[in-house]
């Protein structure tokens, strides 16, 4: 792992704003934990080559519109940490950055696309970036259906390299397989790996009713849970699919069996729908009992604010970034670098109010775009900014170089899809504060997109009916690494408990 000094501008900022202690911490953390944060960053600011034209596909409208700032900030922080950039504003990433250099060439943002979680809109936006603004490399998008459309667009535009932001549908890499489309995080199915195994073998669930958003991410997220739960012998008795953006879930809740007819419920309802759906459940089926519910990444402690502490006990699937109770020097350094880059940010997790940038950086939407930016800079440095021959060298580097990201090393499979470590968490009642908090209970190592052959280019993509509920062998069944008080129980991982 390379150890090199922080970029000078960042070091100066740190020293000026937070004092030398923070700068030292950050420098140490970056050096220890994440070669990618600063590895191979250019030592000079010589900008001899033509600028590399970068486009960012953000998400300024729709169900995830609140995360627009997070997406751009993720890329910006990668440029600050790895390419020596400086932000143009201390309170927003949307004003861009300057001074980024990778592989000896400056990086110039030629446009920020504005998605609204629909394929139709994202195609318009990516066309503006590529065909109007001449973007050579595009980072994004955020949402599942968008990524399928962009991957298909990538197939028709081999001259452009695309790095997915944080969209979690399965198809872009497993079915579409555009050779110029890369994804450095898991898909929605991968993030739920290990959850079904735990519910079946430790919580005693044998039957489950599932409810999922009726679009590609909802289906993909559900597919991961079903594959995992059924692999060990579980049975899915009911599948319900409300449209994305539903506000009144009562008719869909009525289609679910009553609590005494099933061992548990799995929820893959996202955005503002999670709370609305659970409230409809309480109205129709009675109070929640946490040990009878599980959900994907959208289940979070904030639900307890509206639903009360009874939600405690519910298990949750993973996401791109780990919950706050797990920290490593690399994770700490990454979050502190965000605080050193901006004074405040208004992100999707800050409720529309300015907050410490590390709050946004700790959530997966920000992080997915960050890793995409880190991977890009790392690959550009590797090939000295060479984009000739249809980006051949760059794509080879993106395909083969392990990305030392704060939440773990990422390598890609032959479909240019990340193989990642993910986790299972649980909502628990903190006895001291009386609040519901998220606690990591296991890390699932080296999850691949095929689920040991369950999914493949020739299998039907996740849908309402697919995958079927079948017993099968999964590579990680029985291999989960327990996490106790934020510490994975392995000898290799140097992990500390936050706080």
């Amino acid at each position, binding site marked *: 792992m390379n150890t090199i000094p922080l970029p000078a501008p960042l070091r100066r900022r740190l020293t000026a704003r937070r004092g030398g202690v923070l700068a030292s911490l950050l420098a140490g953390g970056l050096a220890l934990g994440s070669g990618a944060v600063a590895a191979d960053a250019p030592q000079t600011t010589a900008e001899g080559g033509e600028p590399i034209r970068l486009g960012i596909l953000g998400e*300024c*409208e729709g169900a995830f*519109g609140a995360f*627009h700032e997070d997406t751009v900030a993720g890329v910006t922080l990668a440029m600050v940490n790895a390419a020596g950039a400086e932000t143009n504003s201390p309170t927003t990433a*949307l004003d861009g950055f300057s001074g980024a250099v990778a592989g000896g060439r400056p990086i110039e943002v030629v446009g*920020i*696309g*504005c998605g609204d979680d*629909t*394929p*139709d*809109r994202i*195609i*318009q936006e990516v*066309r*503006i970036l590529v*065909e*109007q603004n001449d973007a050579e490399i595009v980072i994004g998008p955020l949402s*599942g*259906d968008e990524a*399928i*459309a962009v991957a*298909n*667009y990538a*197939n*028709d535009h081999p001259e452009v390299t695309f790095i997915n932001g944080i969209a979690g*549908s399965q*198809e872009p890499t497993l*079915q*579409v397989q555009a050779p110029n489309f890369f994804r450095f995080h898991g898909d929605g199915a991968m993030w739920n790996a290990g959850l079904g195994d735990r519910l079946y073998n430790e919580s005693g669930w044998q039957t489950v009713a599932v409810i999922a958003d*009726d*679009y*590609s991410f909802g289906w993909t997220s559900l597919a991961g849970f079903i594959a995992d739960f059924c692999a060990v012998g579980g049975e899915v008795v009911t599948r319900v699919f409300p*449209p*994305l953006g539903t506000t009144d879930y009562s008719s869909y809740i009525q289609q679910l069996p009553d609590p005494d007819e099933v061992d548990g419920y799995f929820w893959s309802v996202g955005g503002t729908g999670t709370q609305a759906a659970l409230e409809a459940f309480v109205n129709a089926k009675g109070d929640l009992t946490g040990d009878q519910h599980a959900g994907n990444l959208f289940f979070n402690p904030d639900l307890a604010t509206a639903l009360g502490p009874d939600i405690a006990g519910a298990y949750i699937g993973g996401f791109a970034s780990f919950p706050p109770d797990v920290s490593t020097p690399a994770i700490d350094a990454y979050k502190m670098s965000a605080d050193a880059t901006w004074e405040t940010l208004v992100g999707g997790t800050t409720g529309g109010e300015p907050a410490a940038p590390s709050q946004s950086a700790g959530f997966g939407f920000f992080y997915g775009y960050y890793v995409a930016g880190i991977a890009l800079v790392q690959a550009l440095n590797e090939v000295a900014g060479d984009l000739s021959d249809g980006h051949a060298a760059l794509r080879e580097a993106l395909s083969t170089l392990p990305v030392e990201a704060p939440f773990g090393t990422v390598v890609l499979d032959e479909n240019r899809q990340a193989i990642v470590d993910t986790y299972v968490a649980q909502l628990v009642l903190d006895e001291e504060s009386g609040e519901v908090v998220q606690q990591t209970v296991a890390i699932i190592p080296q999850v691949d997109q095929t689920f040991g052959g369950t999914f493949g280019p020739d299998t039907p*993509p996740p*849908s*309402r009916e697919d995958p079927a509920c079948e017993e099968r062998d999964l590579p990680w069944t029985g291999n989960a690494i327990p996490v106790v008080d934020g510490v994975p129980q392995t000898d290799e991982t140097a992990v500390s408990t936050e706080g």
Partner: protein
Amino acid sequence: MNAAGRRTTGVAAAVVLLAVMPLVASGFFVNFVLTRTLILGVAAASIVFLASYVGMVSLAQWLLVGVAAFTVGNCVAEAGKGLKLGLNPWLAVLIAVAISTLVAFVLGAIASRTTDIYFLMLTLTYAVIGYYVFGQVTSISGFGGITGVSPPGLFRGHPARLYYAALVASIAAYAVFRAVRRTPFGLTLEGIRDDPVRMSALGFNVPLHRTLAFTIAGAVASLAGVLNIWWNGQVDPTSINIGATLILLIVAVIGGINQLEGAWLGAFAYVAANNYLRSLPLIDRIGITEARFNTVVGVLVLLIVVASPNGIVGILTGTSGRLRLAAHPAPDLTTTDLSDTTKPPTNVPPTNMEETR
């Protein structure tokens, strides 16, 4: 030259200008801005046709665009979602136009006995039902839509080919709608627009004429659907949701809902605002970012409608009339010999219906 002649000359000049655009304009302007303008224009022209010839303001036209697009997607795609029939793309076009026209006939027949706000509400209902049908019935789409649809080989290789296809479709749509107006059928439609009770009393089958007009408009809208999925490469239910439906009506209103040319002018104004407003220097400093585009369009619509109830066409014809008046001032009636009433004044701006319809 009379008003009709000036109108024809203007349209012909516009067509010539559009035909040479790939030679003089940037690829993005031609392949994105103008191609999308022409596709939206064809769809909006079907609204203008119904509104100006029959007095029916329809919110179902974008649904018919979607029906054609989804049909092409289901017929052509070999993988992914939908029926995945893998048919010849040209056969898919025929099937798409036929199905969309048939759907238009059925929907038109159901709506043919309603007028005014009731017709508007019924067509709005069609649009909402269509959105949910394509969203919920996963065998033909699902909310993820149908992706990865390519145009036939004839239109691959150079994007300008698709632009010319959209231009030809636009010319055809314009010619069909203008030709219809000159037929007895078209005159009957105008009679129904002005006084349906009297036309019915004269023995005309008003619901049938309305149904047929809706069907013709649907057939033309289906061309926009075919072009749209070729151009966009995909279609999904949000492509035809209530927002997209209203955008098409906005396009028609911006351009001028009483004259066919307004459809394309409105489409150009909408697409240009969508693409270039965000690029204006310092525009984001006053809060106008891509996230607020719909607000900007709303203000634009407000300004245009307040300034000219007949949209951009009204502004253009008004300006043209004033220029002609300035070039050839009206005679001073206080000094003109009014005894010769057989000779009409030659330099008064025309006010016949050709100018407004």
